[in-house]
């Protein structure tokens, strides 16, 4: 009887385990992907899922999904999933790999995602030789958004944005990402494969698995570019779209291995693990032990309506920003709400520079100080620029020999001293900012000495300068006391 001689059949190619059993994207259709009939994504998904199964890495795989048709990878792959902003998949994959060095990270990107908006991210990830696997699905068009030209669109190819066909003069040439990235020293493996016929599909399956294997072996950056059909946007039946990959696309994008350093590549040393959050204060030198004692957030007695608005202005190098920073830091230490907003040109020294500081008992609504209660003008141009803005009843501290007449105001109080000269006498003209700050503190009287002292030590650090700055602060305070005594 035939039944006795019949043999059992066993499954050799079935649904990979790396896929979810059901896709919970929608209430119905949980057994299907959302891809159009004949879409290359489904084929590539299957290759990837199979490779994950075969390498036994499902429980440590992190798949970074892009923006594009394949945005829903997280509905299909039963692995760790991250959905990245458009083009940023390889940067996100870098972060995932660095944070979890034992994981296998796959960046799955389309051609619009990788070669247009994400061209910088992929270039640098490849150049760093990150130990990640990139699957680059190239269908020469922006499909999800309805068929706009991509950098990869072929010359002559029609799209909604190149209705007459892409022309090199106006839209440039098709971007060959694999060739481009292969010129870098970072990648270990770059291959372009296609989905144009059976032979190409078999080769693509091998390449995808190899790109994953390289990562498992710790070799470094691998990228597989897959020429993939988009029957819907190309307006071709699925089988013809497949042929178009082989007969047309492949002419512009020849298949092959563009870079293979897997033989000579040694496993990359794993980057040192990132420090824990609790270690960061110590690393930055702002933990309790490294910080000099200050008032440490003990609320000082101040008026409930305290709202000190300070504008400090001068030329770059006068310590304008540091003056404001010490003031804000001391305010923070004293339990006040503070803001410090620097405003300066691209030059570090020379040029003009100013900062806005607010100290308040209330939440600071805006860090901008357009009408200061105290203006510290470290030079004449700054005074000219800002003297009009001071609130009536406020103060102007001017670093100069004599106050210019044309800047006179009857409704504000003015103190004119050569802070820079005074600092020079103390040892270094650069401490002129601290002389001015000392004067400001004495006038306003809102901050306790220990908060100023703590802030100074935290921000200046160098003991030599701290000593000089403290003398400068004391001198500034004395200046005010002397001038009041004069009155």
């Amino acid at each position, binding site marked *: 009887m035939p039944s006795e001689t019949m043999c059992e059949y066993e499954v050799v*190619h*079935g*649904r990979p385990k790396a896929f979810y059993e059901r896709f919970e994207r929608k209430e119905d259709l949980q057994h299907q992907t959302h891809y159009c009939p004949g879409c290359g994504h489904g084929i590539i998904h299957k290759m990837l899922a199979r490779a994950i199964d075969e390498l036994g890495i499902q429980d440590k795989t992190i798949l970074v999904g892009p923006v594009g048709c394949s945005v829903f990878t997280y509905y299909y792959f039963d692995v760790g999933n991250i959905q990245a902003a458009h083009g940023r998949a390889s940067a996100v994959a870098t972060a995932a790999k660095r944070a979890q060095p034992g994981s296998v990270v796959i960046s799955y990107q389309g051609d619009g995602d990788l070669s247009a908006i994400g061209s910088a991210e992929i270039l640098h990830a490849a150049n760093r030789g990150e130990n990640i696997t990139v699957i680059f699905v190239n269908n020469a068009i922006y499909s999800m958004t309805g068929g706009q030209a991509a950098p990869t669109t072929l010359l002559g190819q029609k799209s909604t944005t190149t209705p007459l066909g892409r022309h090199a003069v106006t839209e440039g040439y098709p971007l060959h990402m694999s060739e481009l990235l292969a010129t870098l020293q970072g990648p270990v493996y770059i291959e372009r494969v296609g989905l144009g016929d059976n032979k190409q599909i*078999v080769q693509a*399956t091998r390449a995808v698995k190899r790109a994953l294997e390289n990562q498992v072996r710790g070799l470094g950056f691998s990228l597989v570019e897959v020429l993939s059909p988009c029957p819907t946007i190309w307006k071709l039946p699925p089988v013809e779209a497949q042929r178009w990959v082989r007969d047309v696309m492949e002419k512009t994008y020849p298949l092959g291995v563009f870079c293979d350093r897997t033989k000579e590549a040694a496993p990359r040393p794993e980057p040192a693990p990132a420090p824990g959050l609790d270690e960061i204060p110590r690393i930055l030198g702002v933990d309790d032990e490294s910080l000099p004692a200050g008032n440490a957030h003990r609320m000082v007695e101040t008026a409930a309506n305290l709202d000190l608005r300070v504008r400090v202005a001068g030329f770059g190098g006068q310590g304008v920003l540091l003056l404001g920073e010490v003031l804000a830091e001391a305010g923070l230490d004293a339990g006040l709400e503070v803001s410090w907003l620097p405003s300066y040109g691209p030059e570090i020294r020379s040029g003009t520079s100013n900062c806005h500081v607010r100290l308040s008992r209330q939440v600071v609504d805006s860090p901008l100080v357009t009408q200061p209660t105290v203006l510290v003008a470290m030079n004449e141009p700054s005074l000219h620029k800002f003297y009009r803005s001071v609130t009536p009843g406020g103060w102007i501290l001017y670093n100069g020999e004599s106050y210019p007449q044309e800047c006179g105001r009857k409704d504000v109080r003015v103190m004119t001293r050569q802070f820079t000269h005074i600092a020079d006498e103390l040892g270094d003209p650069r401490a002129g900012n601290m002389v001015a700050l000392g004067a400001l503190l004495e006038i306003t009287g809102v901050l306790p000495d220990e908060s100023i002292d703590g802030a100074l030590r935290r921000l200046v650090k160098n003991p030599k300068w701290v000593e000089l700055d403290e003398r400068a602060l004391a001198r500034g305070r004395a200046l005010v006391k002397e001038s009041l005594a004069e009155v």
Partner: protein
Amino acid sequence: MSDIVKQDRGQLRIDEDECKGCGLCVEACPPKAIRLSEHLNHSGYRPAYYAGSGCTGCGICFMTCPEPGAITVLRLARPAAARQIDSKMQGAVACASN
């Protein structure tokens, strides 16, 4: 030997509801053992079906199919003839008969 029905090396299972009728498997199948049916499935596609014979179990249709589980390919666990010889020889050195 001539009495024994020769079994195909492969078998196909196609999930009609998962199939989107793209026809890539029909094109890919080397012995042309897959066809598109005339009727429509619940999604309105003409699903692929196995013609019933000729499958070699090569699996190219599986790799060509964009849906995760629309196609399942099975293969003979061991050729029927070899199994019969095995049971009769019982420990004798098996030689390759094919």
